[in-house]
């Protein structure tokens, strides 16, 4: 089993964390477990990652990504008996493997899935391309290529836009704060305020 915190090392230690009445069981590697013990609840970033929405550091779902609300809100029995009418995947299979069995599973497990998506994705609704975008016209692939080419050329141009500039500055600000470079942090803060105004 892989460590729930770093997703890199083998987990050999089980740990139960409780905060504000919420409990989660974690499988940790010795390094992460040691960190967890020395900081107790004091280092928020490490601890919070299990209690607040956090992006996955893995391409696959780990137990932590299913979250606590997820388990508490849904009735145990209902969950156990729930199976996809099309492919037969059960909720328990999904929970265990992190995988859905077919397209219909997205409907079958919708309430739980939405919880997972909230944790691991930016949003729960797709805003990207639709299938067969290329199928509309005869010389379609070329059009699509051109379209994509144009979209992509926008990448570097847009990088200089204020909104992006803002995120760079914010990133630098958090670095400066972390490095305790308060002079630089103050400069950055002013620049950010200037842009946000």
């Amino acid at each position, binding site marked *: 089993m*892989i460590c729930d915190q770093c*997703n*890199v090392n083998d987990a050999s230690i089980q740990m139960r964390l409780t905060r504000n009445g919420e409990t989660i069981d974690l499988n940790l590697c010795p390094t992460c477990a040691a960190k967890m013990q020395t900081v107790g609840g004091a280092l928020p*970033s490490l601890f919070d990652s299990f209690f607040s929405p*956090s*992006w*996955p*550091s*893995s*391409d*696959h*779902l780990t137990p932590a990504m299913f979250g606590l609300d997820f388990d508490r809100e849904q009735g145990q029995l209902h969950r156990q008996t729930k199976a996809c009418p*099309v492919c*037969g995947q059960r909720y328990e299979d999904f929970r265990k*493997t*992190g*995988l*859905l*069995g*077919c*397209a219909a599973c*997205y409907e079958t497990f919708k309430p739980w*899935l939405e919880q*997972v*998506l909230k944790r*691991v*994705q*930016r*949003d*729960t*609704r*797709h*805003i*990207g*391309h639709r*299938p*067969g*975008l*290329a*199928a509309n016209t005869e010389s*379609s*692939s070329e059009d*699509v*290529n051109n379209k*994509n*080419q144009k*979209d*992509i050329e*926008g*990448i*570097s141009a*847009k*990088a200089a836009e204020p909104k*992006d500039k803002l995120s*760079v500055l914010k*990133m630098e600000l*958090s*670095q400066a704060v*972390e*490095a305790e470079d308060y002079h630089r942090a103050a400069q950055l803060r002013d620049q950010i305020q200037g842009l946000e105004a």
Partner: protein
Amino acid sequence: MAWYIENGPKQETVLSTRVRIARNLQEMPFPNRMNPVQESEAEKLIENTFLSLDMSKPRTNWSIVRLEELGKMQKLALAEKHLLSKRMLEPGCGKTLIINKAENLSMMILEEDHIRVQAMSAGLDLAKAYKEATNLTFNLEEKIPMAWSDDYGFLTACPTNTGTGLRASVMLFLPGLIRTDRMRYMTDILGKAGYAVRGSSGEGSKIMGYRIQISNQLTLGLSEEEILRDLQHLVDNLIEKEEESRIKLLQADKLGLEDKVFRSRGILENARRISYEEAVNLLADLRLGLSLGLISEGLSLVSLNRLDTNIGNASLQQICGKALIDCELDESRARLIREELKGPDRRTR
């Protein structure tokens, strides 16, 4: 020349770019729920559809590889070139791999998803890799109905890929940020911003040769263009920081850095046995030395790119044409490196 030996844009900091797109057939369960009949049906459908596309011609430009017919070593060699995922090394996972001649465009059939198209390019070139991957994907979408929902977009077996099914990643060479210990902060920030930061061989691998792979984790709720633009923007930012850090390293102790680079070169040019890890780390010193202009004579980025590709255990055995045991591997690796670093002029002597 294979794509991974060529030099690409921003090659001094970005070694390669990879774009992967996941798709599934509408009418079939995902691979984890398929029976053998469905598997062979899906496999045939995808392969035949591909072969009906104009882009698959001439047929000699493409290899169709049946994974079950490959030995372990052949599979590992493909994995070292990032053409197979680690998962596909396990028996029963993944059926067929279709690869073009230049090895920059490939399609895995029946891995975690039915279809995973992958395009790679040297240096930093998200636009090129994305264009090539979507070209194949769109062509397939025209012929096969893909699993799709208006809410969730393209549906994948794992919810971490759903939506766009798009994973873009860059392999970065960050000696400056790592040696000045700034990468730790960056990793933290990147993680919070929705990016995965990994060692060079993907999930679970450790950092060697100052190589770090960064990829988008979010595939739903953003458009393809936003995903690529954000990553581009992030990488541009990292490149700038890396360049600053390299200059800082140089200013802090130029002679010390030179000493390290030349010692590494000395070992590489003279070692009789060398492990993969040691070789990767020492070659990284040469790459850094080259980018800072500390060494140039008789050394080229192309040589380093070629070595990076060839010194992996499986690739090495393919070059030698036979299975090698540990000490033979280290011996052949050392020989290959000595030959390459001698350079063409010095080689003739």
